[in-house]
């Protein structure tokens, strides 16, 4: 809401405060100020002149040669505006005047004719084009005839006004009007304000005799009032009215429309005027629309309505969508002489529904939606009548034709001074409270520090004690509240085990060389369903789609983090960033039902993607590209960090290299996978050779052993033995390890591969795997014989299970 200080000044005494100070006070006590616009760069030396004569420029078709009386002198001015005429009162910038944009007016010659200044358009004087009345958009501005020659045009046009822009929160709809802002300002500054009651003469004829009002649904439309106004002369509004509208970013149209808009700004009550003749009925019926009923609205569009849209009808036909927009058929036009002026109260939800369904959010609908002062509805209509009498020469018929179901009772709230202090941490006395209530102009009764407050209807946002608490606190001043700390020291804060572990996992992965990313949970359908970890594939039912996504790129909830991580790779590769190592801890979303109606299961995963060089040390000729085993090392380290045991199985997965993918298994169930991104996918995505891992972190944290009991440090020496086995090249080291551990139990403590060889001295199709074995008994020193026995058993088993022979 834009507040003109020139206007506000007329309502409340704001003297003694600069615009900045005023903005600060309003912000601190109630309503956030979004911006302050001081008149700077003001045009100077602009006065009202009278065009004595206006002739065609002898050398230019589109220019006119004007003689302009400025009071002291007559100036010849060349003007290019199509609407310039003799006899007009116009804004003249004399030589030496400076227009916005630091544009200085100089005496000049245009096409051979002397020009001593400029006749100005509103735009040239700094008015926004969308606020300029239509008649003056393409030309100069013309003052009313009665304007005095020589007067300061800037002042007349209210261009020296300061504007405060308020960001009114939904609860403070009372401040969506000058009256509301005036009450607020008066309370903040401790000054006085009261909204004046309008007055005008009424004719003997009664409005009720012309038109009756019938409300079909009291809940949707608790009040409807119709004023009947005759002898209306539709014309331009007076300048002051235009100025007020323009300052509020509203374009002046004609006096009737402008007056309803003005009252909207002043009272916060939307009004609507129908052309009585075109409304063509003696009754107004408000009702819910019929399904499929149509209306042509003021913007020329045909709207199809449904049964939850409220309409104003003439008994037969809809002439307006209640609170949203009027109908084109009964629009006020130049020839309108009789008006029906609507002042009504519509249910906020009904207006909201209509505005939302037809995307017609307007200054009116917003106010209906947020609520109105029940005591100001009829009064706003009266105010419009007062102005129409004055500025449209109208006669107002007696009374108002209305149906009224409004509850105008004031809210009563009880509050105790002690309770206020308990909640705020203050030490106010009842006198302080009274002082605040006086400033707010709230009525009350007080007995022994117990207040019964009567909240005026203009503050329809206040309903409960806590609302009053806020009123008291904000006027008292939040900066006067003390700083205290809560008494609740009985709780020690901390991370849960799971939260601590997640931090540990992050720290581990970062230590291992990976950088954390945060990518989007919402992605396109294809990406959302790519690279789903094998253990999720059985239960997943497709990615969940948003009902109304902003774009298809972010329309589905991901089932895997990897596609977004790979997108990050692609983004960086396209920017010449070559060596990338990323991880993310984030959620994937598994739908619990095919229809996606239930809240999905959310699983936190730890995923990573690495490409490019892992080690680069050029001058030592050391360079290692990332490969499967780099990533596997990271995954193995993570298992160690969490104290869990992983085993790895060859795996196949859409989007992954079929020969270089492993399922990660923990406690006999798959918990994720790792491997190389499929070269086809890699090519399609412009990636480099990329290795990824994706683990079910939630599951791992469940498996994680909380209580690690102390294991004695062995006191007896271990025995180390190396063996080299020749096996078929398809045989996997991991399988042999498992056999060794089983066959050598319980003495074998550890098996490690230390060499893999294939080539010379070995048969084709064979390879050599060398293992280091460690035997140990925690209770005593092992004897050679025992080790030999275990070793023998191991060799026997690997021979029989894996066709392995000792390498000679």
């Amino acid at each position, binding site marked *: 809401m834009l507040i003109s200080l020139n206007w506000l000044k007329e309502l409340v005494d704001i003297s003694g405060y600069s615009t900045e100070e005023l903005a600060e006070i309003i*912000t*601190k006590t109630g309503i956030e100020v979004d911006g302050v616009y001081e008149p700077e760069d003001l045009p100077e030396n602009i006065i009202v002149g009278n065009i004595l004569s206006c002739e065609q420029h002898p050398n230019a078709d589109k220019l006119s040669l004007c003689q302009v009386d400025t009071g002291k002198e007559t100036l010849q001015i060349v003007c290019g505006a199509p609407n310039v005429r003799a006899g007009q009162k116009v804004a003249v910038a004399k030589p030496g005047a400076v227009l916005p944009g630091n544009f200085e007016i100089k005496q000049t010659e245009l096409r051979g004719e002397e020009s001593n200044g400029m006749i100005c358009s509103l735009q040239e004087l700094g008015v926004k084009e969308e606020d300029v009345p239509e008649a003056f958009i393409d030309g100069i501005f013309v003052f009313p005839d009665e304007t005095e020659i020589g007067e300061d045009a800037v002042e007349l046009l209210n261009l020296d006004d300061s504007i405060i822009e308020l960001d009114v929160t*939904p609860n403070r709809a009372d401040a969506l009007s000058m009256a509301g802002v005036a009450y607020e300002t008066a309370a903040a500054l401790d000054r006085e304000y009261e909204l004046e009651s309008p007055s005008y003469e009424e004719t003997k004829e009664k409005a009720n005799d012309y038109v009756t009002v019938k409300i079909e649904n009291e809940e949707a439309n608790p009040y409807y009032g119709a004023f009947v106004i005759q002898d209306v002369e539709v014309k331009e509004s007076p300048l002051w009215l235009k100025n007020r509208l323009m300052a509020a970013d509203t374009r002046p149209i004609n006096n009737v429309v402008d007056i309803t808009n003005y009252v909207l700004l002043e009272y916060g009550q939307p009004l609507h005027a129908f052309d009585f003749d075109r409304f063509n009925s003696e009754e107004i019926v408000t009702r819910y629309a019929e399904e499929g009923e149509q209306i042509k609205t003021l913007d020329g569009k045909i709207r199809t309505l449904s049964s939850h849209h409220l309409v104003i009808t003439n008994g037969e036909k809809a002439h307006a969508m209640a609170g949203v927009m009027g109908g084109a058929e009964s629009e006020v036009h130049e020839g309108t002489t009789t008006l029906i002026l609507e002042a009504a109260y519509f249910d906020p*939800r009904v207006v*909201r529904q209509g505005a939302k369904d037809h995307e017609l959010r307007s200054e009116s609908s917003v106010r209906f939606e*947020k609520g109105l002062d029940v005591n100001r509805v009829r009064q706003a209509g009266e105010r419009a009548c007062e102005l129409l009498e004055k500025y449209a020469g109208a006669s107002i018929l007696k009374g108002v034709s209305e149906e009224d179901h409004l509850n105008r009772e004031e809210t009563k709230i009880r509050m105790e001074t002690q309770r206020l202090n308990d*909640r*705020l*941490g*203050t030490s106010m006395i009842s006198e302080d409270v009274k002082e605040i209530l006086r400033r707010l102009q709230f009525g009350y009764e007080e007995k022994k520090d117990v207040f019964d407050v009567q909240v005026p209807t203009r503050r329809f946002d206040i309903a*409960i*004690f*806590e609302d009053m*608490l*806020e009123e008291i606190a*904000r006027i008292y001043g*939040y*900066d006067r509240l*003390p*700083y*205290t700390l*809560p008494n*609740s020291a*009985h709780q020690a*804060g901390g991370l*849960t085990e799971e939260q601590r572990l997640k*931090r540990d996992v*992050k720290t581990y*992965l970062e230590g291992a*060389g990976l*950088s*954390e990313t*945060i990518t*989007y*949970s*919402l992605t396109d359908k294809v990406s959302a369903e790519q690279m789903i970890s094998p253990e999720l594939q059985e239960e997943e039912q497709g990615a969940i*789609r*948003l*009902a*109304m*996504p*902003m774009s298809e790129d*972010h329309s589905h*909830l991901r089932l895997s983090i990897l596609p977004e991580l790979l997108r990050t790779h692609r*983004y960086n590769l396209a*920017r010449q*960033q070559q060596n*990338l190592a990323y*991880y993310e801890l984030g*959620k994937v*979303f598994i739908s619990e039902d095919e229809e996606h*109606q*239930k*809240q*999905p299961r*959310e699983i936190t995963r730890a995923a990573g993607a690495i490409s490019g060089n*892992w*080690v*680069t040390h050029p*001058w030592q000729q050391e360079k290692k590209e990332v490969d499967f085993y780099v990533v596997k090392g990271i995954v193995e380290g993570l298992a160690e960090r969490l104290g869990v045991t992983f085993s790895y199985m060859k795996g196949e997965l859409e989007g992954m290299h079929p020969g270089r993918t492993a399922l990660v298994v923990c406690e006999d169930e798959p918990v994720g996978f790792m491997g190389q991104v499929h070269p086809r996918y890699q090519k399609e995505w412009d990636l480099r050779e990329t290795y990824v891992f994706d683990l079910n972190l939630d599951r791992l944290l469940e498996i994680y052993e909380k209580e690690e009991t102390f294991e004695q440090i062995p006191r007896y020496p271990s025995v180390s033995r190396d063996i080299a086995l020749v096996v078929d090249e398809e045989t996997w080291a991991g399988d042999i390890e498992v056999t060794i551990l089983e066959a050598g139990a319980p003495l074998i403590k550890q098996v490690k591969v230390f060499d893999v060889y294939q080539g010379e001295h070995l048969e084709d199709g064979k390879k050599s795997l060398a293992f280091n074995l460690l035997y140990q008994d925690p209770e005593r020193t092992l004897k050679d014989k025992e080790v030999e026995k275990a070793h023998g058993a191991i060799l026997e088993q690997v021979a029989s299970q894996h066709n392995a022979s000792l390498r000679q």
Partner: protein
Amino acid sequence: MKERLEELEQEAILKVEKAETIDALKNVRVEYLGKKGPITEVLRGMGKLSKEERPVIGQLANEVREKISVAIDEKQSKLEDEALEEQLKDESIDVTLPGRPVQVGGPHLLTSIIEEIEDLFIGMGFDIREGPEVETDYYNFEALNLPKGHPARDMQDTFYITEELLMRTHTSPVQARTMGQKDGKEPVKMICPGKVYRRDTDDATHSHQFTQIEGLLVDENVRMSDLKGVLQTFAHKMFGEEREIRLRPSFFPFTEPSVEMDISCKMCGGKGCSVCKGSGWIEILGAGMVHPNVLEMSGYDSKKYSGFAFGMGPERIAMLKHGIDDIRHFYTNDVRFLSQYHNA
């Protein structure tokens, strides 16, 4: 014999002096002190000597042996020192050449900010709570005093999945869930960080996904001054002891009274500059006293219990702290952006 020994001594010392390598010195040791060496030979011939001469010569022979031995040892250590010095000289390297790089990763800036805030509130006795990102309409709105059709729902344009299911627009549903679990009896003191979603078009100041941290304290006799005290403690720890805070009225459906907290602008110290748009204050978070409807809906007696809540955006805090101009930087994950904040 005495002469012979003295002669041997001189001869050996001379050879020691001449020896230039450890091997040569070793030869000298073998030659003179070995079992077949001349001194041993002298001692062997002692049988021919008289009873009186024997100890004298014996002592002399030992003395000569000792002298030679000391000379050899001294020379040995000298030669060794020289050799080591030579070796070290050979081994010297260019210490200015670059080292073998260690691959280092680091946290995302938002994580750093969130963890910093978490730790700060843990220090004040708060727990960390988390909840689902896909929420029900009930927890996201209704339990927070935002019934269907409430105009304030417009303040947060929502990604709906079904009529009842949506992407949470704030982390407040975690508060409602936590309160609900406590059966309206125990106090609650928690913060809930997490991802939230709004139906916005991504640009420099909007992101359809962002993070939030909300806090809640519910107990008997919680005062608004407690909120002010906690927020001041937070602001001082997070932004510096010299920063001032101010509260000004605002509106949130789940709190009453509702306030917004500003901190004094660091750039201008409150005088007004481009960073604070001339006001001297920078908006940091929204807060307020928990609305009685929210308490009652979660089973708390609002006559007995009161509380405060607050919510802030880590992105905004990160942008303010580091002068970042575009919120999209947090989600494009440009390595050149991420790596700048690995030690943040």
